[in-house]
């Protein structure tokens, strides 16, 4: 189970197995999306598979999750999402009504994001070989001609923002699996981020990088930034927006919201001088109403993410190797 938690184990798996075998210049940066040139046009391409359980949850289902996830990977790469493909792997005996409902939320999500679902594929696997239904989506978007984003461009003095409260999706899913005797009024944050990303890019010339905070949450994104740019990222604990219900559930579950997956939030690093403009641009759209500056980039210690706690302590927020196990005695 360690592979897939979104931490170092996944990273090592990707680097050990796939990167070497498939090595090419477009893959190498391992960004959210690959940047390509097709017929003189700069495009971005990304693919993602969805194996969420349960398939239906408050705030969404696997269908809109699959559309939004791919739209968001394109959006945070600075692209304008255009076309999506969709592959279904369906377990024998899966209810047609459920399939219809998934397809209809995909259509709605695609409409909301302004993308077209243009090709697809369906496979049926034997009973017990799948968890009801798996989805894969691939997306293509167009890139601005001369805008270079990337975590390696981050530099000391930059500001770090999140587009809204964190942790909603991951906690919702944990509770929705029905194993826990916990009631909480929660919804997944799944949403298309292309409008919000576009708004930020238009308002702020000094956007260095954007990353959607999916698996491994905000903490994992910040570690990617710190390592790629060899900078320090210092986060103010009190500045990280977390909904009261999410914080309560996280405390009960004993998990740190910084590591919980979101499906409709992204982290942006922008020129420190343009932080205010960036927050204003995000807050001008409903999806960015909860946007905040959560920290800043420094030069020391390179490669580490630090959390300034309420008491003035400085805790290391490390990339998790696998599932978190207690370290304290």
């Amino acid at each position, binding site marked *: 189970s360690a592979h897939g938690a979104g931490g170092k184990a996944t990273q090592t798996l990707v680097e050990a197995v796939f990167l070497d075998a498939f090595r090419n210049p477009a893959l190498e940066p391992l960004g959210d999306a690959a940047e390509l040139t097709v017929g003189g046009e700069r495009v971005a391409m990304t693919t993602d598979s969805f194996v969420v359980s349960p398939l239906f949850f408050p705030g969404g289902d696997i269908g809109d999750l699959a559309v939004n996830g791919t739209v968001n990977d394109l959006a945070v790469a600075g692209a304008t999402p255009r076309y999506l493909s969709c592959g279904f792997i369906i377990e024998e005996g899966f209810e047609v009504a459920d399939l219809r409902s998934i397809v209809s939320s995909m259509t709605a999500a695609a409409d909301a994001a302004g993308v077209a679902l243009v090709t697809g594929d369906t496979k049926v696997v034997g009973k017990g070989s799948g968890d009801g239904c798996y989805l894969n989506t691939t997306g293509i978007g167009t890139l601005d001609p001369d805008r270079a984003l990337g975590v390696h461009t981050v530099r000391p003095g930059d500001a770090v923002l999140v587009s809204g409260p964190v942790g909603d999706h991951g906690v919702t899913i944990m509770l929705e699996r029905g*194993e*826990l005797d916990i009631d909480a009024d929660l919804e997944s944050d799944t949403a298309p981020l292309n409008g919000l990303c576009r708004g930020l890019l238009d308002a702020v010339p000094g956007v260095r990088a954007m990353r959607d905070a999916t698996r491994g949450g905000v903490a994992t994104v910040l570690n990617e930034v710190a390592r790629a740019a060899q900078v320090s990222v210092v986060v103010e604990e009190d500045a990280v927006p977390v909904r009261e219900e999410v914080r309560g559930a996280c405390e*009960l579950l004993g998990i740190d919201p910084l590591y919980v997956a979101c499906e409709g939030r992204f982290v942006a690093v922008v020129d420190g001088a343009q932080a205010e403009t960036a927050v204003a641009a995000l807050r001008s759209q409903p999806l960015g109403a909860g946007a905040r500056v959560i920290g800043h980039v420094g030069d020391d210690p390179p490669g580490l993410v630090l959390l300034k706690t309420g008491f003035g*302590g400085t*805790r290391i927020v490390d990339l998790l190797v696998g599932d978190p196990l*207690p370290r304290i*005695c």
Partner: protein
Amino acid sequence: MRREARVEGVVQGVGFRPFVHTLARRLGLAGHVGNDADGVFLAVEGSSEGVARFLDALKAEAPPLAVIDRIEVTEVPPLGAARFDILPSPPGGVANTLVSADSATCADCLRELADPGDRRYRYPFVNCTNCGPRFTIVRGVPYDRPRTTMAGFALCRDCAREYADPADRRFHAQPVCCPACGPRLRLGTAEGDDALRVAVRLLGEGRVLAVKGLGGYHLAVAAASEPAAAALRSRKHREDKPFAIMVPDLAVAGDLCEVDPVAERLLTGRRRPIVLLPRRRAAPVAPSVAPGNRMLGVLLPYTPLHHLLLTDFAAPIVLTSANVSDEPIVFRDDEARDRLSGIADAFLTHDRPIHVRTDDSVARTFRGRAQLQRRSRGYAPEPVVVGQDFRRHVLACGAELKNTFCLAKGRHAFLSHHIGDLENYETLRSFTEGIEHFGRLFDIAPEIVAHDLHPEYLSTKYALDLAESGTVEPVGVQHHHAHIAACLADNAESGPVLGVAFDGTGYGTDHTIWGGEFLLADLAGFRRVGHLEPVRMPGGTAAVRQPWRMAAAYLGATDDTGDLDVVRRHAREWPAVVSMAASGVNAPLTSSAGRLFDAVAALLGVRDTTNYEGQAAIELEQLADPAVRGGYPAGISAADPVTVSGADLVKSVVDDLRAGRAVDVVAARFHNGVAEAIRGVCARLREATGVGTVALSGGVFQNVLLLDRTVDLLEGRGFRVLTHSRVPTNDGGVSLGQAVVAANTTGPVRQ
């Protein structure tokens, strides 16, 4: 006759050459003495009686700071020498020598401090070859003044004369100084004695004083003043963890606490740890100093500044590490101003820089022996001699909390000072800088890096990064094996033993959390031959911070618990936590003994959430009535590995609670039951393995009641029992254990 000798150990910078010189002259012997890379070499020539007496006295009368590992004597023909010479050190000094620990002010210096006729009368930085700062001021090797934080203080003529005179107590004392040329005391704009006067007045007014000591800043308040102690607690954000008390002298220590002879030696010795002592009921100490604790941590002044402060104030003071919450002790002056401005009302400080942050050591006595709970100032960086050779240079990175590291080569394991909790960035920096500093001081370039198996320990990550970037061979050592190996090394033994490792948390080879382990172990390996039955930790780390969750895990989904106070206190969260335990969602399995103590502490209403490590178990021990005999039974399976049912103990606790039994009796029976279970398992394992020696290690054995009962029961059954003494039983000892295991599991030097 003529004899040549080599002396190895801590023999440089401690006045060894002048001692040899004086001794030889007293006995009418000729010859010489000098320093080199391996220690001290010497030759004596004269009457056979004189030479024999010289060799006897060499170890017996050595200077107080000398630690002699080995004296090797060779017979050589007489040369007809007529004089005794001290040979100068080789140019560029001597590398590869041992650095002495910081040492409490000696009696000679104290006499000067109190003598109005002496030029160092009331000088807060008086020191000599036999005492004073060492490790905390050493920047590099070889150990001489330019490579200490005294480099900025040029010797005056008087001090220079003392420094150069082989007959003087200050011959080659690197930190030597006086009011004319040395560091100055300051408080605001007041200097010297004026600063002290203000400090004493502020203490009397109940103010919080920051005091710069040897290894860092302390915070001080009058120990009898409740408002002062309470203010210190709230400003430091330190909820309940006891404060240490510095007392003017041994007599006052005796007024506050019972002081046995071993404790007396610890209190007055040159290493001066904080000593945990049973407090007297009428001890005039404010309640906030050590809330609900039967013990007080007491120490005597160990620098001239402390002596002056305590003499003038003439009453005990709280003296606690200056930091905020879990931060490491503050040791830089600018940092002190920044971090402590909201805590301290005034700063009693000076201009001698501290190079290495070093906390006070903590000790207690157990059956006529000292037991170190934190081995730091006064002990580090002196090596622990463990009775084995490190043929390759080893770095052992230690655990995550209470971290120490250990660098080893030859016969020496250089166990570091207390580093602290690595999750804190400042602490992690102390860790990495400390490793580099020790490597330079002792000329150790690691060929092997030993580390814990826990993938998330920052010490593990450091070790693996080091291994990845170089030619260093990584060796993973299981946490509890390291504990048992540390206990073996502490006793200079090599096993095999039945190792009982009881602690809070350690990563197991099956990827679950261990902590109630019986290991058939030696220095090279182990087999897990028994353990506590695993239970879930609902919420992982949250279950460590909230012991009531462990009560929920042990009681499980049984419906008939509604009458229990712990369930009522957590009625809202209880079903959720029970469901986490049942489903395993963020509820890892653990065989931890610490968690079992937590569950019982919560059941008995001792504590539902902890503010420091081990707090619930510590308070449970305080609650237990040591006069109560007899313990609850725990089921022991016949399986391999043997398992012990913690749930049986919990069930008996619940039954007795329901029967209205007094909690101090229940707490005692639980302790006794755990001890009996250990004896039961060890008896069974002895039958199966033929091994009759038991080594006890792990943080849970800081519990004196449990340790005492366990040793009694085991010895009653004819076991030989090894316990800790020189090295902490808690995670502070883990790095030493890792080092010896790594040295015993790796091959010879590669060609």
